[in-house]
């Protein structure tokens, strides 16, 4: 094959290879990773060898760049960059899309069963300090940055907070919260809502939509304290020997019709103006968070690589997970 692309399963059209071949005559080979972390580990240990294009969340794209594993985006070869919302071209971790191209984006908030939760939750504290009826019926994301973000947002801190004293406060809050938690879960939380095992869960907006698809009573809300802005990006690896083809692939993805596939099928917003505008209105009626405007989204803070403060985060998360 001409290109080896690693992405999350189901993140691209199943026939993407045929489509791309029809469009460019180039062969691609799509492989899947389950998590950012594992593919990052693999890229770092091997220097990225073997892969041409990978899909990772923004902090990981930042690391790839920091480790000089990411190839600069050849703007001339990707004319479809013009389809992006302007808001998506000035993102703090990579202003001007020099080494990464955003693929999907969204917020993190609360996903809940409106028929089981009294009133409308509107604060992170509804999750972290639940009323008695919700005790043992909440879940939080297990991935360390999002786990910490919930506490930081509740406290009104930055989601990239580095001040040790503030981090201590967050830790204390999260350890307390653990006592009322059913589980940490970042894969099946929405089905726990469907079954009724959980009533209120910490969720990425897009995954809440999978729950909404099964049960109309499920709703998503971004708490009043705000959210983070998560972005899954496309990165070309420096070690790639098929950079031209890689750029062609990015350009192909950014084609409005192709990019719209992601919104329609994975129920994530895509930062592609042309694509979003092509969507059927019914989609945002069924899944209200699909209608969130880029201007609103970029009010939220991006998760950034923490550099050496990562040590403090990981220790704190270990301590939270070890608490009882």
């Amino acid at each position, binding site marked *: *094959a001409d290109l*080896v692309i*690693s992405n*999350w*399963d*189901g993140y691209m059209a199943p026939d993407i290879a045929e489509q791309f071949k029809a469009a460019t005559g180039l062969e691609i*080979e*799509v*492989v*899947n*990773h*389950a998590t950012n972390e*594992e593919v990052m*580990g*693999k890229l770092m*240990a*091997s*220097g990225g*060898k*073997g*892969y041409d294009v990978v899909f990772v969340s923004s902090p990981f794209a930042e690391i790839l760049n920091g480790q000089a594993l990411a190839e600069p985006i050849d703007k001339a070869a990707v004319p479809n960059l013009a389809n992006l919302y302007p808001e998506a071209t000035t993102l703090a971790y990579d202003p001007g899309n020099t080494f990464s191209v955003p693929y999907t984006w969204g917020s993190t908030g609360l996903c809940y069963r409106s028929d089981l939760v009294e009133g409308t939750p509107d604060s992170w504290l509804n999750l972290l300090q639940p009323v008695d009826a919700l005790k043992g019926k909440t879940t939080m994301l297990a991935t360390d940055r999002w786990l910490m973000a919930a506490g930081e947002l509740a406290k009104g801190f930055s989601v990239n907070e580095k001040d040790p004293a503030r981090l201590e406060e967050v830790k204390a809050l999260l350890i307390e919260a653990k006592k009322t938690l059913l589980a940490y879960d970042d*894969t*099946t939380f929405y*089905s726990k809502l*469907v*079954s009724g*095992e959980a009533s209120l869960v910490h969720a990425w907006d897009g*995954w809440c939509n*999978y729950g909404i698809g*099964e049960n109309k009573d499920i709703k998503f809300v971004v708490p009043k304290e705000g959210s983070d802005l998560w972005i899954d990006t496309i990165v070309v690896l420096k070690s790639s020997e098929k950079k031209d083809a890689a750029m062609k692939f990015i350009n192909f993805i950014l084609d409005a019709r192709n990019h719209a596939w992601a919104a329609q099928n994975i129920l994530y917003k895509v930062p592609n103006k042309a694509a979003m505008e092509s969507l059927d209105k019914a989609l945002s009626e069924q899944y209200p968070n699909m209608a969130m405007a880029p201007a609103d989204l970029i009010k939220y803070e991006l998760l950034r690589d923490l550099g050496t403060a990562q040590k403090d985060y990981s220790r704190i998360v270990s301590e939270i997970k070890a608490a009882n």
Partner: protein
Amino acid sequence: MNATLSSKLPGRIVLLLVFGFLYLPIAVLVLLSFNDSGLPTSWSGFSTRWYGALLSNTDILRAAGNTFIVAVFATVISTVLGTLLALGMETRRRKSSGLEALAFAPMVIPDIVLAVALLTFFSRLGLTMGLHTIVISHVIFDLAFVCSVVRARLKHFDFSIVEASRDLGASGWTTFWRVTFPVLLPSIVAGALLAFTLSVDEFIIAFFTAGAGRSSITLPMQIYSMIRFGITPEVNALATIVMGVSATALLISQWLNRQQQVP
């Protein structure tokens, strides 16, 4: 035998209970593979659609094939090396803590350390990675498990039959094949089953040492990437087929064996 010494009943009850425990989740898994709904939590009617979906999913089928190839090679190599290592360790006159530590190490090294180490090592050597590098890596821990099982058996082994074989003119090699091996066979089979099972189910090391391409994806890699949204009945269907085919193959081979032995 005296009835008081070997009543068959307690043994049967134990087997019933233990196999009940082993197959309880399997029954659920098989049931879910016929669930029309994609969610494991609700039963929405019998359907074979996931089997249909599976059979047209060439990725999964190839992954299953790869897993089988890796497991077979890793099992064969590790069973040979592990058995020999066990024999070597148990026939040594002086126990060596270094050797013991070496044989324990693959079991206690965290998977991720071994995975990162192997990938780093292979890429520094400039090796092309693929199924062969997964096999190399799986043999490491498989052989430790085989060695451990066989060694346990060797602790109270009567080596005089080995001597008798040598005395009758058999070389070390012939003795191994004609005497040691058949007598150790139950343990070797146990070790091999263990190695195969570990290899079939191993994810992180395979993921790291598989190289980048699609051609060397194994089933656990495939399934891990698929469960982003939780398990779909499609993988349940796959597991059902894997177990069903294995059981059928065994029963057929057993039947053929018996046919051969009767006349």
